[in-house]
């Protein structure tokens, strides 16, 4: 049987100390973001400008992609187009195999997670090294990311210390972050020097320039791309911006929203290969044009992958990134894929509190899109948690004041007469953490009838 988000989250949320720690770590990022956003006087106007700019991109995408790829080609960047994840993987493998390359150093790319690129290449004898520290930790552990910006946020430094002791030979019991980072850096340095190909993602693809921006905090993308003579960059087709000013606007917002820094530490614009080297750029659709064809689903592609919505999401912080079906957790993951989850429950892993939409730097209507998925699923009777059965009954009762009054009279009677332990059983999920309210003697309607429509408030 398909497993609901609630079931998937149970083991995480019921370890209260760990949930508190996880939530606090993410709230620390949220607090830093708030400070940074509020230090920019024009922040709210920037959000609106960025939203409008990305809407312009989505409504002019074919022309912008053509402009972008033509300029890339004239700059000497070789452009490839992939309709699906498989095509993307095959293109990357071809580029590497044709040149006899065996070792790829990768910076963080959510697109490669989406396409499952690394296992695909490894099956073909190409070694892939994740060079982002968080991603490297997960690669050594064999864990999927639990967040798109801080992918190993679910791990404590002691757990990383143990892992590094086993895999990198650090001292037993050492968990000092600086010491562990140094060890990872030394081990990665060897990989950088022996790799014969590099891969990066793309944060913004500038149509007017035929150039792309890569932002990291660790400099690992630059270290990778500047050593070997082959750089493969991969991007979802929504990463386009019209011009340099648009890219600059997003660069002012990306790191502030993600981790509360004014800027990422390393921001490189790749505009042309160095003499004697190649840059390949793979532009991927993989379902994007299908989702974009639905007006109410399309705006998710304004997203710049900052993760601010994930950090603020009260459900994510308490359920952990591994509780979701889709590889992107939290509000943006639900907004992308909430119409298509195993138990149809993902779109309900949300209280519709709206914090995500309010924090999003490009105003993706996040909770609204999640609600839209619920509508679509309800329309097709694909509801989770027994709703296919009970929602029509609720509708039958609620459309009639008399039926409603009778049902609630019975409910109040039941609540008054049932002993507490029975109520706890009948209350289901509600009474797991809470008591039911003490039932009043009568409804407001009954009270109003008795008082003849005139209250004693005069």
């Amino acid at each position, binding site marked *: 049987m398909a497993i609901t988000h609630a079931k998937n989250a149970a083991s995480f949320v019921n370890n209260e100390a760990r949930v508190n720690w996880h939530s606090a770590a993410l709230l620390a990022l949220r607090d830093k973001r708030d400070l940074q956003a509020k230090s920019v006087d024009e922040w709210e106007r920037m959000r609106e400008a960025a939203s409008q700019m990305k809407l312009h991109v989505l409504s002019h995408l074919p022309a912008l992609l053509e402009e972008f790829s033509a300029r890339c080609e004239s700059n000497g960047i070789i452009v490839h187009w992939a309709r699906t994840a498989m095509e993307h993987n095959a293109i990357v493998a071809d580029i590497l195999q044709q040149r006899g390359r065996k070792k790829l150093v990768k910076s963080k790319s959510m697109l490669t997670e989406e396409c499952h690129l690394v296992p695909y290449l490894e099956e073909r004898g190409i070694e892939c090294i994740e060079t982002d520290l968080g991603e490297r930790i997960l690669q050594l552990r064999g864990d999927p990311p639990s967040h798109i910006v801080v992918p190993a946020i679910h791990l404590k430094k002691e757990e990383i210390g143990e892992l590094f002791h086993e895999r990198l030979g650090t001292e037993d019991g050492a968990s000092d972050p600086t010491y562990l980072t140094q060890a990872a850096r030394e081990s990665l340095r060897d990989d950088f020097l022996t790799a014969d190909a590099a891969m990066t993602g793309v944060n913004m693809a500038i149509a007017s320039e035929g150039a792309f921006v890569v932002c990291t905090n660790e400099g690992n993308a630059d270290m990778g791309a500047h050593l070997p003579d082959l750089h493969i960059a991969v991007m979802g087709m929504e990463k386009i911006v019209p011009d340099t000013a648009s890219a600059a606007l997003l660069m002012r917002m990306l790191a502030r929203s993600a981790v509360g820094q004014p800027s990422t530490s390393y921001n490189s614009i790749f505009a042309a290969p160095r003499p004697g080297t190649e840059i390949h750029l793979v532009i991927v659709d993989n379902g994007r044009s299908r989702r974009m064809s639905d007006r109410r689903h399309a705006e998710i592609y304004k997203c710049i992958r900052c993760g601010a919505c994930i950090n603020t999401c009260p459900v994510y912080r308490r359920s952990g990134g591994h509780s979701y079906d889709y590889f992107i957790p939290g509000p943006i993951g639900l907004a992308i894929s909430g119409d298509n989850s195993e138990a149809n429950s993902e779109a309900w892993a949300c209280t519709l509190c709206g*914090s995500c939409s309010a924090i999003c730097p490009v105003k993706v209507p996040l909770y609204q899109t999640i609600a839209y998925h619920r509508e679509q699923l309800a329309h097709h009777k694909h509801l989770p948690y027994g709703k296919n059965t009970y929602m029509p009954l609720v509708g039958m009762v609620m459309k009639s004041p008399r039926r409603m009054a009778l049902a*609630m009279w019975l409910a109040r009677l039941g609540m008054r007469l049932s002993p507490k332990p029975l109520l706890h059983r009948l209350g289901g*999920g509600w009474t797991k953490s*809470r008591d039911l309210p003490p039932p009043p003697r009568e409804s407001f309607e009954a009270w109003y009838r008795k008082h003849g429509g005139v209250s004693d408030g005069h």
Partner: protein
Amino acid sequence: MKLSLFVPCLVNHLFPHIAIDTLQVLEKLGHQVSYPRGQTCCGQMMTNSGCIEIAEPAVAALCEALLREPCDAIVAPAASCVFAAKENIERMNLPGEAKALVDKFYELTEFLHDVAPIQRELKPIRRVVSMQMSCHGLRMLGLGTSSELALPPGGNKLHAILSRIPELTITQPARDECCGFGGTFAVDESDISGKMARDKIEQHVATGADAIVGYDPSCMMSLGGVVSRNHVQLEVLHLCALLNQAL
């Protein structure tokens, strides 16, 4: 003003005192208030789960009831129900006269702040209250400035009204995070929901308040349930209860 009271299902059947206090407050303030019969529900319980078609007859019944008695404004002591009623009326296949109701809906705080501010002196209440800025009121109805926005602080309508009560000390939790209710979320995702509610209560307790004061009965029902389960020394009050006492 001539007002119609919209009493959401939860208030009508489980928290009638909230409707009574609201009615009495509005009457004490000199309004002519009626309660149009035949109201059931704003449809939120269904539409929050995406069941728009199933909810439509209930929303149509609400509109019919409200249309029976002409009024200047429709006031309800429940923010998320007001938001849902407006949203549902707008998106459903309802007659034009029903659509015209949308602009008449006001949540009580909103009404007392934007439309008909309290002119009289209020009686003092000596206690410390912690404001429960529930999400739909805060972010969708704009009863305050939510913490995500880089806007000047202030503009909190609940605070503005409460601060008219002499000797009342007003605090609020450190974060304006969701209390975990979320409609059927509280049942479907009971573990996460329960944890959110306990965390919220902890933050209210940390303010040193002796009561939580809010504008959304559904969130208050959830928080009240946690308070009762864990024997926390906090009263959970609707704004209208304090106002009725102060008028």
